[in-house]
């Protein structure tokens, strides 16, 4: 939902002048109504700007962008189902690419103390690492590091930012 205004903007820019008035009208109506994004996607060449910048050059080996981070609930380092899906994908990539090593960075939202969050971030990184090891990845290929709440991905002070900041983040090394 947070991307909606940006997507609408892209859509507006990409649409011919003939349709501009109609799109602008949609943009004006869109923010309060959840169904807006699908409408936008039909008129936009790429689903998101980030994937657009990565797709043009195919690379033989994996990049950090091939990995999906594992996200966590508040105060928790238990792996959610979506985190397991992300880690299954990561385990397959790592099994297929024996020369790739990763660091898993544990991160937390701001609703904890500095020191507790450093420990919680480590728990998250370790939980993700242990899952990869159980899925057949050598432990030597996965380092862990916790930043606690010191390196947030989203700077906002709301649930959507907090959800972004509770993660085990893949970094290639």
């Amino acid at each position: 939902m947070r991307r909606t205004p940006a997507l609408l903007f892209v859509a507006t820019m990409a649409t011919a002048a003939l349709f501009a008035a109609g799109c602008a009208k949609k943009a004006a109506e869109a923010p309060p109504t959840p169904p807006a994004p699908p409408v936008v996607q039909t008129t936009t060449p790429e689903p998101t700007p980030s994937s657009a910048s990565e797709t043009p050059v195919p690379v033989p080996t994996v990049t950090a962008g091939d990995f999906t981070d594992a996200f966590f609930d508040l105060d928790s380092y238990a792996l959610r189902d979506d985190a397991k899906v992300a880690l299954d994908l990561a385990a397959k990539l790592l099994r297929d690419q024996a020369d790739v090593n990763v660091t898993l960075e544990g991160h937390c939202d701001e609703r904890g103390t500095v020191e507790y969050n450093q420990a919680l971030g480590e728990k998250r990184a370790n939980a993700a690492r242990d899952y990869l090891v159980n899925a057949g990845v050598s432990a030597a290929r996965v380092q862990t590091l916790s930043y606690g709440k010191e390196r947030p991905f989203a700077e906002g002070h709301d649930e959507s930012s907090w959800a972004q900041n509770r993660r085990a983040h893949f970094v290639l090394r």
Partner: protein
Amino acid sequence: MKRLAVVLLLAVLAVPGARAQTREVRIDIAGGGRRTQLYCEAFAAGRLPAGAPAARQADEVLANDLEQSSVFLVSRAWSGQPPFDVQAVSGGRWKVASGQVTLEGEVRDFPARRSILSKVYRGSIADWRALVHQFADDIVLQFTGESGVARTRIAFIAVEGRNKELWVMDLDGAGARPLTRDRSIALSPSWSPEGSLLAFSTYRDGGSPRLYVVPAAGGKLYPVSARSGLNTSPAYSPDGREIACTLSKDGNSEIYVLDARGGSPRRLTDSRAIDTSPCWAPTGREIAFTSDRSGLPQVYVMDRDGGNVRRLTFEVGYTDSPAWSPRGDLVAFVSRTPAGFDLYVCAADGANARLVVSGGSNENPRWSPDGRHLVFASNREGPYALFISDLDGRPPRKLDTGGRTAMSPSWSPSASRIVTAVPTNASNSNPGGRP
């Protein structure tokens, strides 16, 4: 709240050679009640050479110190206020000659204007602030039986973009200077008990955070613990021989005690849960810490060998950041709210938890060495800044960090050991002022 009253017997010399008269002064030091009304008169100053403080500057430093002590209600003569309803008057004179400052400080009762305290302080011009702070601390000592904290310092973490550097400053904000310039993340400073060193955790080496120590006067950093995994939340023991900290070298965050150089790790906790934020009792016999072994984080206490673990906090939800008062009777901690954290204080056995500061997020409480104040970081007025609570229900006071966004304060030990300027006793009729 129970009010503590200290009865002071002040020996007052009416005129030199006269028989000492005894007078009783009652001062409420922990109640939130009455403060002694003190009228600050400007110091008389002769011609001041270059490099000396402007006389008004010294007047303000003293008045601010006395105000911040929470012992006095201060009025300033130079603001044009009349000495209405005051109980004592401070003043004196400056002399500056050949690079040396002499401060003759005096406190008199009012309206009789008999001398309560009279002391002469000498030092170099560069130390003039220390002389004024010393006078302020002696005034507090005279009225309460305990020295003030005007000469103490505050270490804190300054937020600089995405980086955090360790800084130190005088309690009144003067002399602020960085101790790290790593463009990294420094966290969790802890003073050594004699005030010469600061231990802290930092990401400066890349990878996991490590423990370093830096001289409080500035200088080279040296590593104390670079074990694999977390090296965080250092806390010097009261005798300075050991550092309690959090390490995860064995796979999970646990509390350890290292010797002061970082060697001979002794593990105190053994649980699959998170254990962190150790904090010593002033006796050095017990350690409070945070653990989520029962679910959400709570504060626990254990003996210094790791035995006899008991939970301290029950009445409020998510609690963390224990800080044991230097008097030993209270533990401060934080409790999570929808807005962040509130500040609480409870007895050392966990009883009588009471809310001390709320509004915004109030984090990382640390006691003043006299146990009268708590310093903490808060976003109650905007970006994170440092505040002091006198535990008396009055609004917290913001510290001057020169506009820097500041977090994780740590209050230096008491000042007698960290200031070099030594006062010269001249005509103090009642040295020490103790009852």
